[in-house]
């Protein structure tokens, strides 16, 4: 994977040469303009407050802080407009040229509800959507989402809490799976008697320790989760420190990967093409695409 990434990284540097120049030029222009505006405002305020010289150091520090915030947001904005999706697209297209990233919220709450990962939520905030076709010709959508629920605090003020944050993806299968199958991370609350309905006992103790499997047909559930498939999921969890959760319903394979931070965000204080950062994006994208393809292949191989 590392060798493969090195080639992609070199290609990325080559392809984005001109865009980086445009980005740098735009950033320079915006920052100069912002500095000029802040300087003019500061001078005007200082002139008005001529008699309050004691306030000068405070006002200057305030202006500097304000300028830093403006510069960071300008840089982030320019990066997101010019470079972000170009970088992500090159990384995704290294897997399959049909893959395309954009910022459209293509996964709506109805689709997420269908996956039955969370039933009781109020809204979904989404960004960075990847659409494409897997190598097994199944169409595929991947998006970073936050599933949120409205809560009232003691003072009656409403705010949203995250029920889930991470990557959610859907693979459209060319077959219909007649049962509902769900694999979620083990939780003590899942062991309550009313939640144990349709819970399957699996023959891998290491898998059982981490996951709960639910299916309304025991045989079908066991057919999907062979020893090999369970091991694949455990290996993924070990390697990438992510717990994939799976739901299979009709012709849709839903997978979600809880990640407790913004996943594909550039740290503005790092280089534009920081090797480690781009590598982390690449690992995230390729690992999720690969496990989705792998698992969908396992389902497609089944003689349903």
């Amino acid at each position, binding site marked *: 994977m590392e060798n493969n990434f090195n080639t992609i990284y070199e290609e990325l540097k080559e392809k984005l040469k001109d865009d980086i120049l445009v980005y740098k030029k735009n950033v320079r222009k915006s920052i100069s303009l912002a500095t000029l505006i802040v300087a003019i405002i500061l001078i005007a305020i200082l002139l008005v407050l001529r008699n309050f010289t004691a306030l000068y150091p405070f006002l200057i520090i305030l202006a500097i802080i304000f300028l830093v915030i403006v510069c960071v947001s300008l840089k982030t904005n320019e990066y997101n407009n010019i470079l972000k999706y170009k970088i992500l697209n090159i990384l995704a297209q290294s897997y399959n040229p049909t893959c395309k990233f954009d910022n459209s919220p293509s996964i709506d709450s109805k689709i997420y509800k269908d996956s039955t990962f969370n039933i009781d939520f109020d809204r979904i905030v989404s960004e960075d959507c990847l659409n494409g076709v897997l190598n097994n010709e199944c169409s595929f959508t991947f998006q970073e989402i936050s599933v949120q629920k409205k809560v009232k605090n003691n003072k009656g003020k409403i705010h949203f809490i995250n029920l889930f944050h991470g990557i959610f993806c859907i693979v459209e299968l060319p077959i219909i799976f007649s049962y509902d199958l769900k694999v979620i991370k083990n939780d003590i609350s899942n062991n309550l008697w009313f939640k144990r309905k349709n819970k399957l006992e699996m*023959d891998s103790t290491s898998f059982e320790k981490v996951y709960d499997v639910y299916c309304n047909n*025991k*045989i079908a*559930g*066991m*057919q999907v989760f062979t020893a090999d498939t369970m091991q694949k999921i455990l290996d993924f969890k070990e390697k990438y420190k992510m717990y994939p959760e799976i739901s299979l319903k009709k012709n849709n394979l839903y997978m979600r990967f809880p990640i407790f931070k913004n996943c594909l965000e550039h740290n503005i204080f790092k280089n534009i093409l920081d090797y480690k950062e781009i590598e982390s994006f690449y690992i995230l994208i390729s690992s999720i695409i690969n496990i989705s393809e792998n698992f969908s292949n396992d389902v497609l191989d089944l003689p349903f």
Partner: protein
Amino acid sequence: MVIFIVILFVILIYVLIQYNSFVKKKNAIEQSKSSIDVYLTQRFDLIPNLVTCVKAYCEHEESIFKEITELRSKYYETRNLKDGAIVNNECNDILAIGENYPDLKANTQFINLQKNLQKMENQLQAARRIYNIDVTNYNNSIDMFPSSIIAKIFHFEKEELFDAEEEAKNSTKIKYN
């Protein structure tokens, strides 16, 4: 006296719960066993079609067909899972014959049979895994203290796990020409 009655009552409740749990586990095993039987029967019902289809291409292997038909009849009489595993393995072996006869391999009827038998084999494997999980749960309860005492009192005996590989080794191997 009251304490003694309370303790006796608690013990009685515990015995009842454990006894019911053993019965539940034993029934689960019976249920898994019967689903294996259902899948085996479904699979074996296709044997006459398979034999007719394969026979047309390799008549000289008459003995194999005769043997599998006899084994199948034996299974229908005994309903013993071990016998079922033997017939099942022989059935897989006949399917493997197709590899040696390109004409047979290309036959549409044979391809359909192969597909259906493969589907049933897959379901059968899942049913066997469920059976083994149920047997392990039941056997664990028999071995573990204090439920082992209840098992002894009510004569709950350990069940055998299904080992497909072992069954394959024990099966009478059909010799192909």
